[in-house]
């Protein structure tokens, strides 16, 4: 395609095999997965449950090391968690309940040593404004709705201005209406700063809306099935995104097609 002036990859995942131990088994989550994320990519990892997409994201986060292969960010190998790769989780308890919204964002900036005191406060408030929560800056997380909590988590992640934002199904626990709204907001935020984001989801529509590039993983263990371009969000042409959606559907459910019709996702 337009590979002529491709910039160097920001994140490179190279032949990564991930295993984790449960009480009884050693489970292989992914097998020799490779992909590259370019700066300002909205890169989506998509696959059914069991394809190791969350495990893969945790490995990029530095929470577990690959048994084979390498993960490099800006050329440096990832070995441990660090503030250059900020995670946004699905769970609402990622906010510290003993801190207010503002303190939660400031805590991240201060404990990572990014900023101190008034500078941290200013940066925190700037990003809280971006997610439209200025009125709630002094509220505690338990007073917020699920969508608001996720917005705080996104503000906290963005305030860190990390090299890459890692999002692990951040909207999966929200109701459908809020979820849709949050997707739009995330895209608006991206338009503003063009940050790089690695986004995990199991929802095909969400992947098409959020991503500009989609990595399809097949399960047990997770392996790369395809890497697709998505421009579903740019031209508001439902036909293109529907075609892409069908294509992804066929790939993910290919082996079952003979037996049953794939369920229609909305």
């Amino acid at each position: 395609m337009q590979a002529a002036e491709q910039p160097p990859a920001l994140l490179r995942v190279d032949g990564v095999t991930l295993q984790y131990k449960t009480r009884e088994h050693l489970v292989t989550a992914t097998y020799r997965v490779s992909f590259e994320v370019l700066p300002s990519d909205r890169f989506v990892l998509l696959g059914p449950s069991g394809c190791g997409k969350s495990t893969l994201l945790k490995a990029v986060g530095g929470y577990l090391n690959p048994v084979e292969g390498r993960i490099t960010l800006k050329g440096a190998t990832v070995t441990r968690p660090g503030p250059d790769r900020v995670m946004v989780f699905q769970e609402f308890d990622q906010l510290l309940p003993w801190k207010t919204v503002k303190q939660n964002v400031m805590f991240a900036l201060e404990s990572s040593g990014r900023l101190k005191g008034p500078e941290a406060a200013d940066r925190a408030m700037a990003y809280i404004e971006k997610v439209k929560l200025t009125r709630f800056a002094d509220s505690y997380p338990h007073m917020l709705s699920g969508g608001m909590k996720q917005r705080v988590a996104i503000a906290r992640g963005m305030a860190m201005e990390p090299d890459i934002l890692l999002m692990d199904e951040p909207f999966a626990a929200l109701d459908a209406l809020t979820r849709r709204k949050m997707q739009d907001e995330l895209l608006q935020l991206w338009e503003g700063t063009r940050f790089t984001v690695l986004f995990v989801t199991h929802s095909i529509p969400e992947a098409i809306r959020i991503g500009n590039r989609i990595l399809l993983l097949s399960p047990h263990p997770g392996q790369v099935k395809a890497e697709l371009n998505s421009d579903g969000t740019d031209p508001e042409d439902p036909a293109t995104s529907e075609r892409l959606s069908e294509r992804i559907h066929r790939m993910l459910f290919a082996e079952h097609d003979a037996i049953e019709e794939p369920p229609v996702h909305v």
Partner: protein
Amino acid sequence: MSSPPIARPEYVREQVQEHDFDVVNKPLTAWERVRDNTLVRRLFILAVLAGIWQAYAAYLDNALVLPTFVETMRSFVARVWSGELLLKSWVSLKVLMQGYALGLALALVFTILAMSSRLGNDLLETLTAMLNPLPAIALLPLALIWLGLGNPSIVFVLVHAVMWPIALNTHSGFMGVSGTMRMVGRNYGLTGVRYVGMILIPAAFPSILAGLKIGWAFAWRTLIAAELVFGTTSGSGGLGWFIYENKNLLDIPAVFSGLFAVIIIGLAVENLVFRIIEQRTILKWGMHS
């Protein structure tokens, strides 16, 4: 049987504006507010209990078995006024605080050990399993042999009473901190002491506070029991000794006064100290489950 549902007309309504409502908020009546006040309700219960006591004691008419409520209160006030009860309470509280503080410190050391290695974890779990069910007072004879007749023995027993429940609760609180929260802490570069102080302790605070409360109650009853058993050390005994002494003198209203003092101190610590800590932390953070 089942005919298709009848078609109904659709409708769309204008929203009523806020200022068109009659009642958006209306103050509660004074009586409703009094009934909503926990303190008022509890004082009411106490008054009823005191009334029952007074009536039964008057009916029994035997001050050696059960003095009336009024008589007890008179004795209580007189002994507070003379300073005797205050002094005894102070003696008890002083010993109590020593044991409590020491037990808390040791509990912390043990939990940190348990958090930092698997062996430490096994050590704490084995020790608490063995020693937590052992009544502290059962160690008193040994303490007397090892440490002699005096404060150190009582403090030793108190430490035993306080340490295990606090360690157990703190540890299980730490273990229960959610994986997400741990990952958040590590994501922003927290390790070691900062990680424990900024993530684990606040996240486990509900359990820690429960442990502190249990430890306090255990310490208090162990102390009174220990004083009852061998009473005075270095001249002036505490509340337990006060109760024991007055029993020997058959001054039953004074015995009740002593018990009263124990109850009042317990209530005060529960409602002032722990209640306030709870309001400023767990309740404010919405962490009570």
